């Protein structure tokens, strides 16, 4: 992993979309990948929240990097991440109350998402704010690229709907109850990693 290495802006933004994907390759952020992927809408909002929190936290951590004493750097990072996540939570419940209600505790749990802390500690703490912002964005987008396809499989099979709208030709289908609960997230994620790595290996 070239985590601490300095790179170009393009590299910072794109390397985690595929080659170093935080979920599929680094296997981080699994807990939320299991919890929110049974509905496409919730997944999308969760991913948007994560992209925002990850990008802004990375930038802020990078901005404060030379001022932050080494001994309290983790505490500072958590504080920054938590502040941005609470901002998301407050804004959601003020302007999108329905989605905020659907997501319940998940938004708050972005704080504990290991991807954000991981990027802050591994990259933002030793790079310039601009690069760190791109790195955070890339990590969030990489997370989205894994979660969205999984949600697109789980919601139709588990609920017979897509983005909350019932799929007409699936109305009479027996619903796969397991697709709704967390274990299905394990199976789908594992299948995704298997296919993605198999494809990457064949290409190499």
């Amino acid at each position, binding site marked *: 992993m070239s985590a601490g290495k300095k790179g170009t802006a393009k590299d910072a933004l794109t390397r985690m979309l595929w080659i170093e994907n935080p979920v599929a390759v680094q296997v981080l952020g699994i807990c939320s990948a299991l919890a929110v992927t049974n509905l496409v809408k919730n997944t999308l909002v969760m991913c948007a929240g994560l992209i925002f929190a990850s990008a802004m936290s990375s930038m802020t951590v990078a901005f404060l990097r030379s*001022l932050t004493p080494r001994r309290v750097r983790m505490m500072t990072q958590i*504080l920054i991440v938590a502040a941005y996540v609470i901002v998301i939570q407050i804004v959601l419940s003020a302007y999108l109350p329905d989605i905020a209600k659907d997501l319940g505790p998940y938004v708050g749990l972005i704080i504990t998402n290991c991807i954000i802390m991981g990027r802050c500690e591994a990259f933002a703490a030793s790079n310039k704010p601009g690069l760190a912002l791109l790195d955070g964005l890339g990590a969030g987008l990489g997370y989205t690229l894994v979660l969205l396809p999984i949600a697109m499989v789980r919601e139709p099979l588990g609920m017979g709907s897509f983005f909350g709208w019932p799929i007409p030709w699936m109305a009479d289908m027996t619903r796969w109850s397991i697709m709704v609960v967390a274990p299905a997230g394990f199976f789908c994620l594992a299948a995704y990693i298997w296919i993605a790595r198999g494809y990457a290996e064949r290409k190499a």
Partner: protein
Amino acid sequence: MNEKIYILVFVLLVTAFFGALVSGLNAGLSERIELNKQVAEERVILALFGNEGINDMPAQEVARLFQEDIEAVTTGDYTYYRQRSGGSVLCVIPMDGMGFWDRIKGYLAYDRASRTLKGIAFTENKETPGLGGRIEEPQWRVQFDGLTLGVPDNEGRYVRVVSPGSKHPERAEVDAVTGATGTSQAVERIVNASIRRFLERTQ
């Protein structure tokens, strides 16, 4: 020593800055958040009184309609709702209790004259989406409409939630949600407790 003071000052400053950011935003938006919650609750109550299309109505309209038409009747610590325009027959009564995972709250519409339920709605539940969470779906909730309450059975139940597909059309019975026995039983308990409480409090 110097370093320790620097750490202390740094931590205090960073905490103060982000604390102020978050609490400032919260103070600025808390009124709006409270209003959202209140309107969501009012929408549910109005819908139970038979106001159709209430979910597409703007928030201010909802608040105005609620103010004009709904009367809260409070005795002690108990509150239920009546319609100013519709007389005192149809009541919307609160439900509250422990679900399978967490608290479930909602309202029941109850017609006192014919002793029938006219609808059920949930305002708060954290049941598994797609399993227990399906209690929120209209197709499930519609089963409560028109149930006539008889004499409670020996466990004190007016309404019974039975295994899917086995409800008797003549009795006050509702099919459970498949794969969510825990939630279904909890809803049965909560509904019956709510009816009992209303009957006790309004005698």
